[in-house]
């Protein structure tokens, strides 16, 4: 006698529970707490950091996270970060500090053992410079100035060397105020100091050939327009920032990540005004 009543009561209770839980499940998803990622910078001025921040903000918008920008001193006060990106001259101390706090770290602009990094593709840049040089002048009149003043220059040197050696191009290690062969019509430089040196020589008219080099800084577009440099390998801080935040996000989620390399543009007077290159050649413009 009681069995049917018990079965019915059970079914009604189950239906009520299902209705309660079901409408919660079918309703809107409760908002998740927004995680915060920090960018610690060495300087908050300049087009590089501006584009770096823009790229990171784009990534933050896509990932649904918040981006906060700190100076080094501010970063020590930061709390509750899900991940961090460091763009510092000497990032190791800060990186270790954050690592000790369990905050995943991504390094921008240089490599640091034990940490994931995002860099411009220096080897690609070196190779592009070398190949462009070969397309512009007789290889007999090309000089490659190698330099290992920094990690990027060293990488560019290695890549350019590989091409230069295969083509029997003259290779010289850069030294300030060094002399150049008389028949030199085109100089390939792989470090900023060498590039600026050659630009100065062109301005001084102590060198009248073509100069291919790396990013000269905020005057890059003018240098190209003036013709004191004929081709410039430019990093994309926007892409670097974008990749860096994704890298930090992956680390925070437990993914295994490796170093990322952003595409490098070889800007010339022919392509410097194109819309696809404007962000790198005229970073303050767009």
């Amino acid at each position, binding site marked *: *006698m009681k069995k*049917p*009543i018990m*079965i*019915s*009561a059970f*079914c*009604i209770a*189950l*239906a009520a529970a*299902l*209705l309660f839980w*079901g*409408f919660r*499940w*079918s*309703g809107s998803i409760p908002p998740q707490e927004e995680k915060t990622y920090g960018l610690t910078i060495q300087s908050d001025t300049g087009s590089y950091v501006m584009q770096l921040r823009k*790229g990171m903000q*784009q990534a933050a918008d896509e990932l649904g996270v918040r981006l906060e920008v700190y100076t080094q001193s501010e970063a020590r006060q930061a709390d509750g970060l899900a991940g961090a990106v460091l763009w510092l001259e000497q990032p190791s101390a800060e990186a270790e500090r954050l690592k000790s706090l369990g905050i995943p770290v991504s390094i921008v602009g240089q490599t640091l053992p034990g940490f994931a990094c995002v860099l411009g593709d220096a080897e690609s840049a070196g190779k592009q410079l070398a190949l462009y040089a070969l397309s512009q002048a007789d290889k007999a009149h090309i000089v490659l100035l190698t330099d290992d003043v920094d990690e990027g220059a060293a990488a560019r040197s290695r890549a350019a060397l590989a091409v230069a050696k295969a083509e029997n191009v003259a290779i010289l290690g850069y030294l300030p105020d060094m002399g150049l062969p008389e028949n030199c019509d085109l100089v390939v430089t792989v470090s900023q100091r060498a590039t600026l040196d050659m630009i100065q020589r062109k301005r001084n008219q102590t060198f009248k050939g073509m100069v291919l080099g790396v990013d000269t800084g905020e005057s890059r*577009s003018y240098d190209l*327009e003036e013709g004191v440099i004929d081709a410039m390998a430019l990093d*994309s801080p*926007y*892409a670097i920032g*974008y*990749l860096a935040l994704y890298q930090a996000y992956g680390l925070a989620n437990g993914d295994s990540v490796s170093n990322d390399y*952003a*595409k490098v543009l070889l800007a010339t007077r022919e392509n*410097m*005004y*194109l*819309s*696809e*290159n*404007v*962000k790198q*050649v*005229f970073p303050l*413009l*767009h």
Partner: protein
Amino acid sequence: MNQGTPMRKRGYSLHNVILIAFLACMGILLLFVLFTLVPRVNQLLEQNAVERTRETVLQSTSTLDVYVNSMISVMNFVSQPLTRGDAASEDTLRLERLNLMQQSRTDIVTLAFFNGDGSLRYGTGGKLRTEPEEIRKRQWFQNALSWQGTSISFSRPHVQELFSDQRSYVITLARGLEYEENGERTLGVLLMDVNYSTLSDMMNGISLGSSGYVYLLDEQDRLLVHPRLDLINQGLAEESIAAVHEKIVGVTRDRQNGRDRILMISTVGQTRWRLVGVAYADELLALQDAFIRILTVVFSCAGLLSLAAATLMAFWVTRPITHLEHKMQKVQTGDLNVTITEKGFREIRSVSAAFNHMLAQIRSLMDKVVEEQETKRLHELNALQAQINPHFLYNTLDSIVWMEERGRSREAITMVLALAKLFRISISKGRRFITVEEELEHVRNYLIIQKMRFKEKFTYEITRQPEALCEHTVKLIIQPLVENCINHAIDEASGEELHIVIDVSVTEAELIFTVTDDGIGISEERLPSILTTSVGESGIGLKNVNERIQLTYGPQYGLSIQSVEDEGTTITVRIPRGWEESK
């Protein structure tokens, strides 16, 4: 009643049939709703979502159209003075007009007018840093000249570097203008640089759902504006335009990065640009998903509630039937004192009432049978008792002694023999039924004894049909009738001799015994109660005989008495033929 184990249950349970039938009906109804309502609602939701998105895209296109038209209007406005009058004399005024227009609008970067040879006539950009030959090579210049003012050339986004003090990221509008100089009509080019950020901000502010967006393609299907244009240029993102490439305007679909997309394409007037709205199907149809989830929950609840309702209904409907079944099973085991409570549905009440009535009738019938059996037993017991009734025995034995004392031994012996035969047939080894011949022998011996006692008081004769002799009858039915005649028919007052005739005849179906006398008869008043009169001397009354006959053969048989006072009485006994002991 067959007492024993309850009837074995066979067939389907009514409870389960009702339960299954109810669930089946609910299931069919739910499935009907599911297959008719859900696809239609889904379709309507999808149509609604797509339509709303399409409207957003069209609205965006309209906004862009308005903007482009406003730019064209500006160009028309600034070009009008040039086409009227002598060009050179009013250049200053025209430049002022250009400056006024450029300063009044933040989206206009530069306004300039070039001669047909590429030299700058006047403009708001300052000093020109590009040689006229270089300007003549520019695509916008060539387009403007070749189209001769019939159409406006819209460039791709680029950095404008024509002027020394200016680097802007712009879209260049250029239009050929015919003007008069020194009396001759010639063609120049009006240039207007519009800030790219105005257009990109306008486009990138439009969202379709949480992930959807719009982008702009030029006439060669190259991206002009896209929310991820920088990433696409860096090779970090991609935008598939294959589906858009195949369709000029309208709605199409594709799939990118594992997500289905709905693409709505419209054209921007005057420019040959196309605006593409990208909406993600999973976002557009989120409401559909929510509807499906809600429907799943509701249908599941409906199923559970149906099960609950079906269980309760089956229980409610079958409970009185089950109650009825249990009671019937008790009856089947022999308990006839069961009473079923008349409750529940009308039909169940009716069945319960009928069953109670049937049980009452059975009980009554059984009581009646028991009573009849008891009566029969009593009558037989009485009849048996009558066989050894002491009065008749005393009187007969007295008669024998008297005869013997008087030396009438032969008569004594005759009486003794008759008595012995009488008692022998009475007992009949315990049989209830004897042959008619035996019954007649019984009454004959009785009459011998009574004749010897009552001598001249009566005479008798016995007649019968020969075929009746071998028939069977319940014993001791004629002798009581004869005894009744002797006891009541003799007219003591007149002293006339009573004549008794005993006859046995048969019909096709019956045996008929008649005992007729010519005695004093029975008054009409007394006749009805004869069959209830108490026992006679022999101990067996007419009532006993009649009741025994009816108990044995049925109420349609028994005694009937016809009598006329002072003339005589006939008692007729009718019993069926062919009735034997086994029955």
